């Protein structure tokens, strides 16, 4: 398979670990060679979390070059902008949630919160297709990652992966009621 890079970003505590692991497993179930890596530093303390998944036969390092992500997934609006700018590849896509966990400079009043419109403008400038996930229906913020995952699966944004690959991945990683609830939400967002 031709190289396909996925850059996943957000804030510590948003469930990026599960999102990334589910994607990696789904890609593996699709028979695609892949390697992933998380960079979290002190993320447990509200810092940036980045996970990268690299698919394809000619992939070696789990780290990818700047501006080489075919798909940027962002769980938070400021990190959507950061991910778009540093990792997004022209012609690629950005799937993002309009969720803000204000970083310190915003809360101290040194700068203002990034808006959804600024993201859309930035996408236009950089030649990246924006896909905003509507969270209107979602009650539990801990399952926002499933909304993102369902959107990716529904729109078949990762070449070669089918919905059943995602279900198999979720079956591996979750159990009981949590699995049931996550699958329900995943399905809902997959159907659009």
């Amino acid at each position, binding site marked *: 398979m031709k190289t396909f890079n996925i850059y996943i970003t957000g804030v510590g505590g948003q469930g990026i670990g599960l999102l990334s692991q589910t994607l990696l497993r789904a890609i593996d179930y699709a028979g695609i060679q892949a*390697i992933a890596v998380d960079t979290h530093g002190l993320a447990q*303390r509200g810092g940036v979390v980045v996970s990268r998944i690299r698919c394809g036969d000619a992939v070696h390092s789990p780290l990818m070059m700047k501006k080489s992500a075919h798909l940027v997934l962002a769980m938070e609006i400021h990190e959507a902008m950061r991910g778009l700018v540093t990792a997004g590849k022209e012609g690629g896509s950005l799937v993002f949630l309009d969720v803000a966990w204000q970083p310190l400079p915003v*809360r101290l009043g040194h700068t203002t*919160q990034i808006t959804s419109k600024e993201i859309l403008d930035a996408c236009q400038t950089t030649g990246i297709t924006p896909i905003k996930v509507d969270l209107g229906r979602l009650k539990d913020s801990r399952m926002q990652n499933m909304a993102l995952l369902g959107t990716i699966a529904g729109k078949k944004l990762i070449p070669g992966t089918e919905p059943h690959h995602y279900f198999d991945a979720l079956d591996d990683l979750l159990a009981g009621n949590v699995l049931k609830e996550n699958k329900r939400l995943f399905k809902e967002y997959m159907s659009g």
Partner: protein
Amino acid sequence: MGNEPFEEILMGNEAIVRAMVETGTKVVTSYPGSPTPEIATAINSIPEEKRPFYFEFSVNEKVASEVAFGAAVNGNLSCVFFKSVGLNVALDTVVQFSLMNIIGGLVIVVGDDPGANSSQNEQDNRNIYHMARLTVFEPASPKEAYIYYKHAAEFAKKEQTAAVLRLTTHVCHAREKIGFGALNPPPLFRNDFNRDNGPYIALTSMALEMKAGAIQKLKQAKLFARTKGLNTILSSDKNQDLGIITSGLTYLSVLDVLETTQTCPDILKLGMINPLDEEILIDFLSSHKQVLILEELDNILELQIKSLAFDNGINTSIIGKVDDDDFIGEYTPDKTLKKLAATWPDLVSTPANDEDALFDVPARPAQMCPGCGHRSAFFAIKKALSASDITVADIGCHTLGFMPPYNMGEILMCMGASTGMASGLSLENSKRVVAFLGDSTFFHAGLPGIINAVFNRHDVTLIVMENGTTAMTGHQDNAGECISIEALLKGLGIEQVVTCDTYSQERLTDLVRQSLAHKGLSVVIASHPCMLKFTRAQRKKTGYIQKHISIDQETCTRTHACVEQFGCPSFIRNKDGRVDINLDLCIGDGSCRPSCPEQAVGFDREEK
């Protein structure tokens, strides 16, 4: 964990645990530190009764190394693992290992942190292995981490010595599908210690005889590397003029960059980085006109290889580090591309403009969690301090107090260094000196500085930031579970020792004021359980209802004390100045309430 061979997607840190079991490792010890704590998480995921080895978090890396060594000289294959700077703490012990006949074999897993992702420096521990005469295996991927642990264990057992598995952050945290081997029944625990297996007393001339033994074992390591094919040449058959020598994750960066080129230099990948096998190096150098050494951090390989070329009269042009920047940071694919393009512009094109300052994005520094007792503590302690007081930080979550809005902790060194530094700062100084110290660090390396302050009568106020866990690295247990810090300090004869829950902010401010007025060492134990750990546990309970804070917008006069001075990340500052609560983050602890001069911050379920 099955007994039959299987495939699974695992992180490097997790794959090592399978290798521990497959090799019959009997004792594993550690002190938690990134990038290696997931090794412990994987170990703890095996129920203790099913775990085929003993595991402990020791009080620090030195003790962890000693416990593993003790078990290994008793005949048990053992392993100690810790982070990069942990080796500094362990070094007094680890540097002796090569002198000893470690009959069970000992594997030291060290997670170096190029790029200082979660450490106070990016020290290159390869410098130390040369001095300590330790054999070092360096994997490039999770798959290799699993295989190389098994090699390290086999070599350590065979030569009755210690061997190092050198990991780096993104090898520890990478995930890929790995094929694992079968399990044999675990070996029995051994009690074979016998001084005749030694000598184990390295004193005066004995140390010299034992050093000769260490040198011999290193020679055996080179043969082992050859037998196992650890140092390998990838030949392109297209370009015999140019060669690259590399190791670890940098090797994968090189492969990524060369995917984009028409021709490909030959690559010598080193899997054993200490000692270096001269035979393969001489052969590789002699068969190329120009050789580039790509190694992240220090120029360890370069200096040895250049010396080898000189001694052997090899005229190959050898290129190593050129700029200061070559010594700094990870050799990511981007950095490797730049280095290759600068060295061989005909082979690799200079990267396009990679400026990413197209749009401003506010920085997101790590911060204390919602409800964190340390935030309450800093907020209260700040009121007791004057602008001229000197505040000394230590390692832990409370280090984050150095950032605005608290600005407490003006100097930081390493684990447990605060009281010692504060003691020095207090000499002949009219300014008051306050040191901070976490509870896990208190036991790890904090006690000697405290005892020194008692012994030498230093005038310092120490604030122990007690949260009952080793929070920064993922909530590992520490000795505070069974030892009372207050009782221990009182036992040292310190007169002024007080404990206060950090949510009692007014009381804490008063106690810090009183302690600052005390001549000599005074201690305030500012205590509150880690709220991240506490809240996670609460959420698992049935019937748990999440409380939140709310802001009475009619009472609020927008002083912004809550968001600017208390600074909990749960506050949202709107463009019009209104402050709201981020319900995804707020845990409803209420520690922010005293910060509002108008009492506009309350619980959302309260009648006002």
